[in-house]
């Protein structure tokens, strides 16, 4: 009996027992699909986090410092001076303030509001920074210019728009040289940033940046308590953090006369990577269990199937089948069933990944990794073949008369 014939016989046998074949496949379909979906969701999430971190830029140090009322003196000027003094370690320094008061931003007939929490996509935030705001936050200038030292020094009525704010206010018109109204005060647009391109992160793009010297008028005269320092390298980041902590420690004892904190995205990114590794492990374990359960299902139905076909094996032997022909037939049958099931599982897994990406990860297009897909597929097929083959080998080594006696 040649291989072609064996394949034909296997397909005939599968087609003649559709229900049983489908049940066998079901375990594989569920196992493979669940592994594929889980892994692609985890990978998608990691990718999203990495994109976000990349857009924010690395070697970025966040400094927070505030002294309670009654403590003597304002340290924000001193801190800013100190940061500016670390030229050997630092690329740029900027105060980083978000204005939390309700403020309207208007151009022509279009009005946006900083407190529009109902519609994140249409909320525009007002931020205050220095001429180095763009460098520190990893923005790329799309047109016009950054804020200048003079703008800050003279408190000029100028602003720079984030990519999202530019789109909302001006659509595709070049905004440079136009005037927008912030709480009815005219501001000249001098430049705009490219969108950061991170989906679902409208708060990084829907931004209007003003010189930080507007803090007194727009922010209820509060002290500037947050700075962003962009360091030259990972090593410089570590050193700058140590220096800043020492500097701030000289003025503030945490919890007694104020609070301060200095941390970098590098720490955060490490933490996130650790976290996503944990997630991968946990979800991977769950997916592995479902694959195992699917595998046990395959095993059971294969054992039952071949046992119930012992008589068939006896008949085939009585009319002249060699052991080898019978083993080859069952091997091919198991491989074909499991293979088809595995392919359906991969198909469902890909569809499931796309759906999960759409609803869980803000429309991200998820595509499962080929290594995991092939791995899950191979595992299920191997399982089906092994457990389909073992009873077949056992049954085929019986004397024909014993196999014929089976009911």
């Amino acid at each position: 009996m040649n291989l072609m014939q064996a394949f034909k016989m296997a397909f005939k046998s599968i087609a003649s027992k559709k229900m049983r074949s489908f049940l066998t496949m079901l375990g594989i379909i569920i196992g493979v699909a669940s592994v594929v979906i889980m892994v692609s969701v985890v990978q998608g999430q990691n990718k999203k986090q990495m994109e976000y971190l990349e857009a924010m830029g690395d070697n970025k140090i966040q400094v927070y410092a505030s002294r309670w009322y009654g403590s003597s003196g304002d340290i924000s000027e001193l801190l800013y001076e100190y940061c500016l003094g670390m030229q050997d370690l630092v690329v740029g320094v900027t105060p980083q303030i978000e204005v939390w008061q309700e403020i309207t931003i208007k151009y022509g007939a279009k009005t946006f509001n900083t407190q529009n929490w109902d519609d994140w996509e249409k909320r525009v935030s007002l931020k205050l920074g220095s001429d180095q705001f763009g460098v520190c936050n990893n923005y790329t200038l799309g047109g016009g210019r950054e804020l200048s030292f003079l703008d800050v020094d003279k408190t000029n009525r100028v602003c720079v728009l984030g990519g999202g704010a530019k789109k909302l206010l001006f659509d595709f018109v070049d905004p440079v040289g136009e005037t927008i109204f912030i709480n009815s005060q005219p501001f000249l647009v001098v430049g705009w940033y490219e969108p950061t391109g991170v989906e679902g992160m409208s708060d990084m793009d829907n931004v209007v940046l003003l010189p930080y010297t507007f803090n007194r008028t727009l922010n209820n005269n509060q002290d500037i308590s947050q700075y962003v320092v962009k360091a030259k390298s990972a090593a410089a980041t570590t050193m700058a953090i140590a220096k800043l902590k020492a500097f701030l420690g000289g003025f503030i004892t945490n919890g007694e006369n104020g609070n301060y904190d200095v941390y970098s995205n590098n720490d955060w990114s490490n933490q996130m990577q650790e976290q996503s590794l944990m997630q991968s492990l946990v979800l991977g374990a769950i997916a592995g269990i479902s694959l195992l359960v699917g595998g046990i299902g395959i095993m059971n139905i294969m054992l039952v199937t071949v046992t119930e076909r012992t008589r068939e094996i006896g008949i085939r032997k009585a009319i002249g089948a060699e052991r080898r022909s019978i083993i080859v037939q069952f091997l091919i049958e198991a491989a074909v069933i499991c293979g088809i099931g595995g392919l359906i599982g991969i198909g469902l897994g890909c569809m499931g990944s796309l759906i999960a990406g759409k609803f869980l990860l803000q429309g991200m297009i998820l595509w499962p990794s080929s290594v995991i897909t092939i791995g899950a597929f191979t595992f299920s097929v191997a399982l089906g073949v092994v457990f389909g083959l073992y009873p077949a080998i056992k049954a085929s080594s019986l004397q024909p008369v014993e196999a014929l006696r089976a009911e």
Partner: protein
Amino acid sequence: MLIDIKDLYKIYNEGQESEVRALDGVSLQIDRGEFVAIVGASGSGKSTMMNVLGCLDVPTRGEYVLNGTDVTSLKDRELARIRNREIGFIFQGYNLLQDLDALDNVILPLIYRGTSIFEREELAMAALARVGMDDRARHRPSQMSGGQQQRVAIARAIATHPPIIMADEPTGALDSKTGRHVLGILQQLYREGTTILLITHDDGIAATAPRVVRLSDGKIISDKHQEVDWL
């Protein structure tokens, strides 16, 4: 000499209290072209006899020479070849594969024989035509009566033109009219030169065989030739 057995034993649970001697030192010779009925009550060892003669089972000890070959020393592969080419089996319960139609059932031994794909269907159809079942080639066993199924089983047994046909109670599950029809097919095969071994418990059927071997408790108690009306 086609079949030559000497001192053949088939013993289950040998040496234990539950020891059963299904064949207890049987010797028998059958020539090419004979029609032999092996008769005995239930438990006399006649089915075991057919299983051993048909290479479906191995004897505990003894000699079995089939067509000049010592069968007891053969391996699975060669036994499969004998079952495929030398012997055609007909069982009481037909033993057709339920998921295949009549034609595919008859084609099966031709596949194991290695017959070319172009000849198989023709040979199988010819075998079905011989038993008058060619018009039901595409019916499944569940769509056929017992007599029809047994005729398909006979077609399967003769598809490879084996020199020996072994039939174990072929009429046991059939009414007397279809039973006579099935016997008629066997008698026709005999006239064409096929050696027939017919296992039965029914003396009426045994009376139609030119030679009757009677078994009791695993031993041959008589071996007679007789005149039959159909020759």
